[in-house]
């Protein structure tokens, strides 16, 4: 996998800078083990030309993003910054994530000290990028990770296999097995199950999830989790096609 050649995973941190959104110091500390791209964006209504908004707010947005970047730099991270004015947040985040080839995108939520990571795994997903990211983030921190396979029905083997693979990858990457807990359970409503457990953890790392009718109606799985959960969510992007 081409990704393995680039050792440090890259995390995209989109922040609505002019709305006062920010990233807590503890979360910055946690993420700084990865390469970080801070994307300060400002969403404007469609009747306002992006150019017009940038004329007035560009400096303020640039300053705010630099302040955020400084937070990551102080935590020892390698930081790149982007500033964007847009009519469509998701379009901008997706475009920048593609351009910087981000491993994961952060959906921010308030958080205190970051120690315990929950990794819900569903179906036959590619766990390599996900496990590589978790291993990097936890390498410098004392926290634990819980690999949680969620099967749709009793007897489904895919979830357990995914947990097994992820656990093996974490071991290979040098994470102390004592810090890795594994479990598998069955849930009818996996999103709700993840949200319910989120209170016991500080960060959730999960895959993008498959596109389905539900995701079209209700939003992507990770977004639904981030909206309802207490913890920030790192959404691991699927490997680009052809890799």
């Amino acid at each position, binding site marked *: 996998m081409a990704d393995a050649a680039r050792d440090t995973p890259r995390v995209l941190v989109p922040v609505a800078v002019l709305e006062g959104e920010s990233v807590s110091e503890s979360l910055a500390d946690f993420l700084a083990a990865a390469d970080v791209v801070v994307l300060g964006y400002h969403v404007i209504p469609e*009747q*306002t030309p*992006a150019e017009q908004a*940038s004329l007035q707010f560009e400096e303020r947005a640039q300053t705010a993003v630099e302040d955020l970047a400084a937070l990551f730099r102080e935590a020892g991270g390698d930081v790149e910054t982007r500033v964007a004015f*847009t009519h469509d947040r998701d379009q901008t985040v997706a475009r920048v994530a593609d351009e910087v080839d981000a491993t994961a995108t952060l959906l921010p939520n308030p958080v205190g000290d970051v120690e315990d990571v929950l990794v819900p795994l569903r179906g036959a997903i590619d766990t390599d990028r996900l496990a590589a990211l978790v291993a990097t983030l936890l390498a410098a921190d004392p926290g634990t990770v819980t690999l949680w396979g969620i099967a749709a029905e009793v007897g489904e083997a895919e979830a357990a296999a995914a947990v097994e693979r992820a656990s093996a990858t974490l071991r290979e990457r040098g994470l102390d097995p004592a810090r890795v807990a594994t479990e598998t359970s069955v849930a009818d409503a996996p999103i709700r199950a993840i949200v319910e457990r989120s209170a016991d953890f500080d960060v959730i790392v999960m895959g993008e999830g498959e596109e389905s009718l539900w995701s079209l109606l209700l939003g992507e799985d990770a977004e639904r989790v981030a909206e309802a959960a207490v913890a920030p969510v790192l959404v691991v992007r699927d490997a680009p096609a052809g890799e």
Partner: protein
Amino acid sequence: MAPETGAANRAGETPATSGPEAVEDEATITEEGTELERSIGLVGGVAIGVGTMIGAGIFVFPGLAAGRAGPAAAGSFAIGAVVALLVALPASELATAMPKSGGGYYFISRALGTLPGAVVGISIWLGLVFATAFYLVGFGNYAAELLAQLGLPAAGVVTPLALVFGVLLTALNLVGTENAARLQNYVVGLLLTILVFFLGYGGLDAVGVFGRASTPEAFLPFGLAPVFTTAALVFTSYLGFAQVATVAGDIKRPGRNLPLAMVGSVLLVGVLYVGTIFVATSAMGSLALGRAGETAIVDVADAFLGTAGVFAILLAGLLATVSSANASILSTSRAVFAVSKDALVPRYASRVNLAYGTPHVALAMAGGPILVLVALGETEVLAEVASFLHLVMYGLMCVALVAMRRNEPEWYDPDFRVPAYPVVAGLGALASFGLLAFMQPTSQLIGVAVMLAAAGWYAYYARDVELKGVL
């Protein structure tokens, strides 16, 4: 780009040029590295063009045109489409070379200099205000007709209804409802659906599918000459394709989508117009159409489908006038931004509201005068003045293309190049300026007065501003 000494306007402001910037398919990147996301796709671009144009051609002109040229009025609309294409092609090339908000004003100020730019920029602002007032009164007429059909009292409600809707549309854009622009797409979509159904049914009926033979009628009852003079009259129904260029800064893949949206929307409405005339003249004969005048299309619907048809066409009329009015209010606000950014009017005019993120000053400079004009009446004369001012801009755009091509600056690198440009741009300019001669003297007089006033403002306020070739 550092301003030259003496480049400031009376208030000491200089054009806010964003400097050398990279135009990519999905975003523009400014000198400081800020990304400006492009979020309007091809469909959105076509919706702006069609939404601005479609009102007049179908809901005002069929009766007037058929009365003057007979069934050959369809040919008049086709000639109008050809002239519009002659301008749309140069506009497309300029827009792909300069995919920035501002449209025609931007091309003219960069290619021909500040004075022509200022005259076009300021008079197009007023022209759009006039046009919007006209659309709103049209809306009031259709709404009143609908009330009358429902058996409700409809006397004297035209102006109040137009005012209420003018306030509503302005407020909607001010408060920045997230989906204001998407709403436009749906309105245009629904409108097209009704029209295509109407034309499909009427077209089948006209060729005798439903058993009722249509009245055979001489195609050219008045000879060939009225076909051309009528083309001048109905060209108003093609004003608006250039509005697509005013959002050029926000269009995805501008090199492909701008030409497609401009040319495509002209072709789309051209086909609809020609089809409408064909169906209308087959249904009623051009004499009866001519007598019915501006609401002829309602009578045509009645002839085909009875009351249901009348309601459908009245609903379509409401949608068409609302979409034209809304698109024009947005264009007006962008026109104000374009001249304000270039220091031709005070920078204050391009302020963005902090709470809503909308350009509230520019929107007020659109909505305010529009409401005053609607309240005062006399919008029909002003609509022709709006056409006059647009035609001046179209002609100058063609001149701008020739100026650019004859001495191509280093930065001039359009994705789309007009084939045989001297012929196309020459004919486009000739046709645009030629149509001015066919207008009523009052409109010509007011139009020239507006342009002189704009030039006067330039001389007073922004004489030192240098825009030619400034990106």
